[in-house]
């Protein structure tokens, strides 16, 4: 079993959608007129699926990801992650839920600037209930696997963009979440860095990790099983990508994995 392996308890779960959103609406107050970020979105992600959410700027992609993660709330509708309703929950419940069930990868990394690469992984591990040594061990394993084993003591600011994003992905995986959310994970990277990250996502997906990825780029989206297109706060298209391997997601669904690897 590698550091990216799926824990046995997740494999034993009954098959439930990794994400199920029903009639989600979200309106933001703005100076001139309210911004309707989500206008009755219906959206479902199966266990082990790798879904790309695409669409132009302002179409509601990031808001969709945020409401799944519980970083934002819906005004109407329901949001379920691994069978748990996350809408209407208080912030602390959501925080605890995120620790174990959701990993989040941001476009601009959002790493803790003042602490080392390893400590960026240890902190969420400890938050997730691991002991210091266990978290360090897990962090080192992840850094090794993601090719950052020789960067443990370095500060994020001294890493390249691709390395930073790999570090952010490692952080997202520390607590073996069932669901990995990624908001434009290659948006701040050059083509080489973007390819690194995409390759990593593919490996994770092959190991059964459920991934929802927001992206502008059709090339990046092509790596996913399925591409969901949004426009003006609505899902306008939902189908398999032209080149995306759907088998992995289907296999995982059949095996009953609600959450993927970690």
């Amino acid at each position, binding site marked *: 079993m590698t550091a990216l392996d799926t824990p046995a308890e997740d494999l034993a779960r009954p098959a439930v959608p990794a994400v199920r959103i029903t009639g989600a609406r979200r309106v933001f107050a703005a100076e001139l007129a309210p911004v309707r970020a989500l206008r009755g979105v219906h959206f479902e992600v199966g266990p082990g699926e790798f879904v790309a959410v695409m669409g132009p700027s302002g179409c509601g992609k*990031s808001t969709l990801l*945020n409401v799944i*993660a519980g*970083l*934002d709330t819906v005004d109407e509708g329901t949001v379920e992650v691994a069978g748990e309703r996350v809408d209407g929950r208080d*912030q*602390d419940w959501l*925080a*605890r*839920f*995120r*620790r*174990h069930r959701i990993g*989040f990868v*941001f476009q*601009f990394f*959002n*790493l*803790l*600037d*003042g*602490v080392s690469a390893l*400590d960026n992984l*240890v*902190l*969420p591990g*400890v*938050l*997730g209930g691991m*002991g*210091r*040594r266990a978290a360090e061990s897990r962090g080192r394993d992840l850094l090794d696997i993601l090719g950052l084993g020789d960067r443990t003591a370095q*500060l994020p*600011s*001294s890493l390249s963009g691709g390395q930073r994003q790999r570090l952010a992905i490692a*952080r997202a995986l520390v*607590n073996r979440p069932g669901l990995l959310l990624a908001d434009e994970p290659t948006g701040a990277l050059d083509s080489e860095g973007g390819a690194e990250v995409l390759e990593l996502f593919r490996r994770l997906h092959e190991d059964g990790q459920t991934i929802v990825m927001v992206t502008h780029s059709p090339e990046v989206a092509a790596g996913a099983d399925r591409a969901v297109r949004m426009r003006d706060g609505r899902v306008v298209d939902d189908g398999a990508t032209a080149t995306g391997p759907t088998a992995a997601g289907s296999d995982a669904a059949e095996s009953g994995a609600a959450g993927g690897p970690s």
Partner: protein
Amino acid sequence: MTFTALWLRLELRRRWRSLVVLALLVALAGTAVLASVAGARRGDTAVDRLVARTSPADITVLPNQHGFDWDRIRALPEVEALTTFVISSFQIEGVPDNSTGFAVADDANMRTIERPIVLQGRLADQARDDEVVVSAHFPGAFHKGVGDYLTIRLFTPAQVDTYVTGADPGAPAGPSIRARIVGVVRSPWYHDNVRDQGSVAVSAALYLNHRANFVGSTDQIYLNALVRLKGGEKTIPEFRADLARVSGRTDIDIWDNAELERHATRVNTFEGDCLLGFAGAALIAALFLVGQSVLRYTSATVADLQTLRGVGLGNRQALAAASAGPVIAALLGSLLGAAGAVLVSRWMPIGAAALYEPSPGFDVDWLVLGAGLVLTPLLALAGSVASAWLALASAQNRTAPRRSAVAVATARAGLPVPVVVGTRFALEPGRGRTAVPVRPALLGAVIGVLGVLAAFTFAAAVADAAANPARFGQTHQLESFLGLNSTDFGKVDPVLARIAADPAVTAVNNARIAVAESGDTSITTYTVDPVGGKPLSVVTVSGRLPQAADQIMLAPTSARALHAEVGSWVTLTGAARARREFTVTGIGFVPEGSHNDYDAGAWATTDGYRALFGTTFKFHLAEIALRPGSVTAAMTQRLQHEAAPLTGGQSIGLQQVTAPQQLAEIQDVQTLPLFLGGFLLLLAAGAVGHALATAVRRRRHDVAVLRALGMTRRQSRLVVVVQATVLALVGLVFGIPLGLALGRTLWRQVADSTPLAYHPPLALLTLLLAGPVALLLANLLAAWPGHRAARLHVGQTLRAE
């Protein structure tokens, strides 16, 4: 330059509110600093300026001899002016005896000597007995000022004769004079002491028109004199020699009034130092608070200017443009600050110095104000250029931020995440957009605890001194006046033996007192003569009491005047030119008397005293110490009752020992350190509060990331609580020992300069409460930033970042 002017115009248009706030901050800080420094300078020179304007007496000459020929003294070549005053009393209705002053016996007073500053009204006509002047405290204490009337009641000549024998003359039965207050005055002789109620100065005509009511029918009352010397204080030895020559006496007590003025100056200097300390603290606070504002302003400006660097804006241009606004604000602020300082000068100088100030009211210290007007904009210029430079450099800085060993250790120790993160927030400054000035916060916390501890340690010392007259050498609670000018008022020995036999009496000293001379120094000498085997406890600074006829213990000020220490030999001249050499066996305090302070004088054995003065004495007193817990008033009655059969039913005079004037002076300055401590506490609260608020604002990204990773709201709040707690703990760890040391050092300085017996003060309650209170205060300060951290909207924050 054109660009700077253009940029400044833009800045004034869009950010004028920030600049106005900055100017007001500078003005507030400028007022506090300039007013304090000017006040300290004014207080420091108050005595000298009063002396320069009032032709004060250099010495007070006290022969205490009726019929003394003052005309011969007046004619001595050293004497510039002389005025005599009468050692007998009169009463003023509604005014206690200690506020009635002495009656002057000639019209030289306030004319050729002690010409006071007139604070209000005018000087009294010395030819009119119905005109008086009062000192500055009098109107406030008695609600009678210029234009109001006082009723002076004189004793009959027969009553005065009774007074001479030491008996109570009863209420004055002589003439009454309705006198009008015509002025409020001040001179070194006619000044108020701290806590005095003020006094009345009657005209010479009162004595001259009613002489018999002052000297009695037997003319036994004597006159003493204030003398102004042509050569000032330094000609005292020549005057003393001539005085001895023309009077035939070498035991005449001469007070060096300059010594009193020097004491006043020492007190004023101490208060001035406290004020300067306040000014220093205010300056630090100003540098911190205004510096933060300037830093924020220039950082924001530099951020704006960064966009223009792409189109050719140079570093120097950026620095000039970023600094222009703060400098303009500082210029305006310094002008307002100077005006504020002039306004505040109305209440300066503070404390004892105010009692000597010859020109109370508004004052313009051009040197201080000028320095403020020049230095403030320069400081603002330096600060804004430096902060703009830092902001520019920070934008290009790629070095790793400083790590805290403590924060790293907390992480290594596996402590909970909020503790690790909170410690990091408290101790690591970060870099760039997340940078938070942690050092000012840490320094502020240390200074706050230090200031409070020092202030309360000092206050504890003052309270200890106030509760223990022994710190001033006064180990006795009662005094009995037994005789005057070599004549006892009755049979002394059996009375003292009976008093000493009382089980509540722990010590009785039978003190004969006379004044010896050594060079130009008068040494009021007391006998060490225990009664009933109950010796008086004498507070010694070093050494021991004398045990042989050729040994003596000197009080600290006398020892200093004679350049003597334990083991030195001193030569004293007593009555009838008797000269004796003594070895100094100790330095210690003496009882405070009418002719000496507790720190001036000497203790001699009865044999040693006799060798100097024979059987003569100026005063004969008994110092009586009571068992702790005794009620002094009740004991006075009991002892008088016990002594009555031995004195033919006549009650002996027993009076309670009053606290020395120096205690009141110290109590007067007690509030200054407390004020300073409170100010430093505010500074600490500001620094810590600012650090917490800034950390939450600038590090909201980190908090949001941690929240996204699963940190709860409670844990977010805990991060700020830990940050505040770490700051408080740093403050306590360094502030407590430093504060204790500073408080004790200050008190030692006061003890040395007062002087008084130094006992290391300990503010136990403050020490016990410092920790809990500091932690409570820090956590109260953390409440709002913690709430903000807990309410952070994670999604929006991360998106905005």
